[in-house]
């Protein structure tokens, strides 16, 4: 075309980003020695390599050293060796290293961006304007956490060696999300990038080598499932951080069960994008473009489920289609490309397969008539309508450019539909009515809620999911805590107690005794166990002390139903919850002597010790009451015109398994913070001395605690803990018990990926930092980050 023809056509034409620097970098490197271990470039011990290719063309980019067990061992050993010195370095020293990394990345920003687009296939605009700047921001932000660590996290130190496994959709950004907080906390890391996308991690390792990162602090190993498994199962790793599919996340949860490894999982999603009738519709359409057609839809928090208010559904979908027709598919290095290829043929096949299944189930899938490049793993953007929640496309994470649209009648139905998913990563709410938006946001089961926006991220704002989207947060204060631990104290191992069943005989001659039948406490009522069996309770000297109900799985089921139904407790004001807990403390204080006598009777504790335990329990209740309206969220100010509200929301229904040791204080120390933050509880008290708990429900009954907020099921610890772990309507589970019970609970928790905390078989000193209220308040909440952009 000559210029006059172009003048008539007014087409964009190609605007390719230069790749010569990237090609030169690729050519100059020996990728067979690309394992970065202990500050050195190593070949894989077995000499194996794997290939990485351009998704846009299928062209080979490099053959990368593939780590096996021995290489992982070497990397972990290097990290372990580097740990003491790195941990002992001053915060200022670590801050300078993080800062140097961030600045060096800035200096090579374009090379990172081009390599990322070559390797992953994402449009250069995205890698250049979003991925790389956010990754840099993460390091510079965390330099500050490194320096202020001692002041901001007193009593905490690095958890140790972190094993980190990251996905291919945001290779450099996920690397930054993993490495920056780990280094700031004083951890050393072994990180494995995804097989599809190793290149930017290699460039990053080069930067570490040159920017003054001490040898062994950052180790980057490449490989597939074998290397991943070797990291997950490595006994000398203290913390696993994983971003990827829910499927693999569950495998990792199982693999690490009972190991004592700290674990954070950032998994899949099926995030709702809710458009109310008073939304800025054109802007909401652009939000969708950034939501589901960002990175070809290969985004864990992609707004893949459009929920639009019934009255405007037709008009809105017409706008969506018109916008889709303007999306340009093509070469990721073309600055005019909106949608690049999917990362790999396997991913393309998966997306095609899901779309076909969705159509088979009745979905109408529409795509614009765009030209598709002849080669490469491209998939047209898809709008799927005529779809209900039952359709596979509305349930499964597609991880491709596929939007499903459904309509809703009113706000309640919008929330119901939005929450009708096993996932809970993110959600978008579009409305010009801030009252409506801020009414809806807290009701959405999602770790991140964007109001009138989507896919906004910042290093200062935590990111992570509810439900099966995983647990733990990345970014901000919450993210730092994932790499920190309180100082270890010497603790005794808990021995499993096999609660006896059967009929216990009272010794003769006790004529003054009036028989008592302690029951289970479910839904605010004293109820007999479903199975109608009892178990005997003996005192410290082995004498008959009474009988309690032998709770079973059905009692746990009923208790969970009651706890789920007690919605009033979570929605009560914090002040209200505080007053109830104060009242509970007050009522326990009235009966302090009785409880002390019971403790002495059961545990054989001295009168003084028993009195001290009762006093400590009352004090703990008082303390929790006081914090109910103080353990609050924060407001972040990310570098955009938005406030981000980090809300502390209750986890939901919490299972609590209390220990035999300090049976009253143990139970109260778990119960009080859970209640203070608005959780409802199913408590399994000490199996050895459950009478202390059955005495307690009388106090609960007189303390204005709403029915169902606290449920007590007595019975065998291991058995009931397993039932709680397997119950998919239990959101969290705290267990202080023997190691087998703890491990089993972690193993069985994968059904809904409930948040499990265990003492890992050890007793807890309730007066140490690890047993302190603060630790449990933190576990009692999910942090939800609600982004509220503003301006008029």
């Amino acid at each position: 075309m000559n210029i006059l023809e172009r003048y008539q056509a007014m087409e964009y034409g190609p605007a390719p980003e230069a790749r010569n620097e990237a090609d030169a970098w690729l050519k100059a490197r020996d990728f067979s020695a690309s394992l970065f271990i202990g500050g050195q470039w190593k070949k894989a011990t077995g000499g194996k390599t794997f290939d990485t290719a351009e998704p846009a063309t299928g062209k080979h980019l490099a053959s990368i050293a593939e780590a096996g067990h021995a290489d992982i061992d070497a990397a972990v050993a290097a990290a372990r060796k580097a740990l003491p010195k790195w941990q002992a370095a001053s915060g200022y020293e670590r801050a300078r290293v993080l800062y140097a990394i961030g600045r060096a990345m800035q200096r090579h920003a374009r090379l990172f961006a081009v390599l990322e687009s070559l390797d992953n296939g994402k449009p250069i605009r995205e890698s250049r304007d979003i991925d790389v700047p956010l990754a840099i921001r993460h390091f510079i932000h965390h330099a500050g956490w490194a320096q202020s660590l001692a002041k901001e996290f007193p009593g905490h130190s690095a958890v140790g060696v972190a094993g980190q496994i990251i996905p291919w959709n945001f290779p450099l950004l996920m690397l930054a999300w993993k490495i920056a907080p780990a280094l700031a906390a004083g951890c050393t890391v072994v990180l494995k990038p995804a097989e599809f996308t190793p290149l930017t991690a290699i460039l990053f390792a080069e930067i570490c080598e040159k920017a003054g990162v001490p040898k062994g602090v950052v180790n980057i190993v490449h490989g597939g499932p074998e290397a991943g498994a070797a990291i997950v199962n490595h006994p000398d790793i203290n913390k696993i951080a994983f971003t990827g599919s829910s499927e693999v996340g569950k495998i990792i949860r199982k693999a690490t069960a009972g190991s004592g490894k700290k674990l954070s999982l950032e998994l899949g999603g099926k995030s709702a994008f809710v458009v109310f009738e008073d939304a800025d519709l054109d802007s909401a359409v652009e939000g969708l473009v950034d939501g589901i057609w960002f990175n070809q839809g290969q985004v864990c928090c992609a707004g893949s489920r459009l929920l639009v208010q019934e009255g405007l559904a037709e008009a809105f979908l017409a706008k969506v289609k018109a916008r889709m027709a303007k999306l340009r598919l093509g070469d990721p290095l073309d600055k005019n490309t909106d949608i690049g290829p999917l990362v790999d043929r396997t991913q393309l096949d998966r997306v095609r397969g899901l779309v076909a299944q969705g159509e088979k189930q009745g979905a109408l899938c529409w795509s614009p008539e765009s030209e598709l490049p002849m080669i490469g793993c491209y998939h047209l953007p898809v709008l799927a309508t005529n779809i209900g929640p039952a359709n596979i496309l509305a349930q499964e994470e597609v991880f491709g450019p596929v939007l499903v649209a459904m309509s809703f009648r009113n706000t309640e139905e919008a929330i119901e539909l939005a929450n009708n998913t096993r996932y809970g990563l993110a959600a978008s709410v579009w409305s010009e009515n801030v009252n409506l938006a801020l009414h809806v946001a807290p009701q959405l089961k999602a770790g991140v809620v964007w109001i009138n926006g989507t896919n906004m991220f910042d290093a200062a704002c935590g990111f992570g999911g509810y439900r099966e989207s995983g647990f733990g947060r990345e970014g901000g204060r919450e993210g730092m805590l994932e790499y920190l631990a309180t100082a270890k104290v010497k603790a005794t191992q808990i021995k499993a107690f096999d609660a006896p069943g059967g009929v216990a005989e009272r010794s003769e001659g006790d004529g003054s005794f009036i028989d008592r039948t302690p029951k289970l406490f479910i839904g605010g009522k004293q109820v007999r166990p479903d199975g109608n069996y009892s178990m005997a309770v003996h005192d410290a000297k082995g004498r008959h002390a009474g009988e309690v109900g032998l709770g079973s799985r059905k009692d746990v089921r009923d208790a969970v139903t009651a706890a789920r139904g007690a919605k009033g407790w979570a929605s009560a004001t914090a002040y209200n919850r505080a007053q109830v807990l104060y009242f509970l403390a007050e009522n326990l204080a009235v009966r302090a002597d009785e409880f002390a006598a019971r403790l002495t009777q059961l545990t054989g504790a001295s009168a003084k010790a028993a009195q001290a335990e009762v006093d400590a329990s009352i004090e703990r209740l008082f303390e929790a009451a006081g914090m109910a309206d103080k353990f609050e969220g924060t407001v972040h100010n990310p570098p955009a015109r938005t406030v981000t509200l980090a809300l502390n929301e209750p986890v939901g229904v919490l299972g609590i398994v209390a220990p035999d040791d300090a049976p009253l204080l143990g139970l109260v120390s778990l119960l009080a913070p859970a209640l203070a933050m608005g959780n409802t509880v199913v408590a399994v008290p000490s199996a050895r001395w459950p009478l202390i708990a059955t005495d307690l429900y009388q106090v609960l009954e007189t303390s204005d605690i709403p029915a169902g907020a606290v449920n007590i099921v007595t019975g065998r610890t291991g058995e009931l803990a397993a039932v709680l772990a397997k119950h998919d309507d239990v959101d969290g589970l705290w267990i202080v018990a023997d190691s087998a019970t703890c491990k089993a609970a972690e193993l069985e928790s994968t059904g809904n990926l409930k948040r499990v905390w265990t003492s890992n078989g050890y007793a807890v000193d309730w007066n140490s930092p690890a047993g302190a209220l603060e630790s449990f308040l933190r576990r009692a909440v999910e942090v939800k980050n609600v982004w509220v952009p503003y301006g008029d």
Partner: protein
Amino acid sequence: MALDIGWLEEMRHVNRSALERRAQTLTKRRSIKADNQAAWLLRSISLMDLTTLSSHDTDERVRRLCAKARNPLSADLIAGLGLGDTAIRPAAVCVYHPFVATAVKALEGTGIHVAAVSTAFPHGLSPLETRIAEIRASVGDGADEIDVVIPRGLVLGAKWQELYDEVAQFREACGEAHLKVILGTGELSTLRNVMLASMVSMMAGADFIKTSTGKESVNATLPVGLIMTRAIRAYEERTGFKIGFKPAGGISTAKASLDWLVLMKEELGRRWLEPDLFRFGASSLLTDIERQLEHHLTGRYSAAHRHAMA
């Protein structure tokens, strides 16, 4: 059409933050290189209202501007770009009323329109009959395009009926001449007000809606352009009428003109890259485009003084 208050209510939902994000990324999503860039810059020239609106304008100054409009590109640029006999010229020359006759005469036979700013430009605060008389006078002198201003207070006070009535009377006074309604967006406080003023102006008969006079402290910005193009789209969707858009003020670089063309193409489509539906108000833009075109041909960066001034 009549003033439709119900429709205005529907159009109130404007989210500034989201608009700004869209505007900010819009120009990063599209890039125009090489021959296409040269072609697009020629397009910018053809969409230009070459403007002089200084209090010290003179007839001679206006004649010079018209001469530049007649021959915007040097012979070597025309040859180098292969334009042949195709005349690529600004769409109009825009002046104050006293210079309309001068411009009409100077542009005779070129097809270049003469636009007059009117209705107590730039503030719009003289008696209505005076303002209407002004339009008639300019049309009488031969202006075939009239750029009117609205009193911003009518928008800030939500006096939609009054605004509608005034614009409708301007429309009537224009007769056959094209009516461009300048909103003075830098003084309307919110993007919602820009949206509503756009809608009222179109309902009252505007052929074009225009951002600014160039005299406000904030001129044409992309978020303002985005909301006005969305208003135009909504108007077309419901009525079938295509309304034109003219950003003005502060658009002085070739790159900035491309950003606006991208905005039009993305939000409204190719049809809005024609002079009957899109104009730039610009005074110094042309020189920068000439420099860029020269660079395109020679690979050398040019200097302003190497191009004939307006």
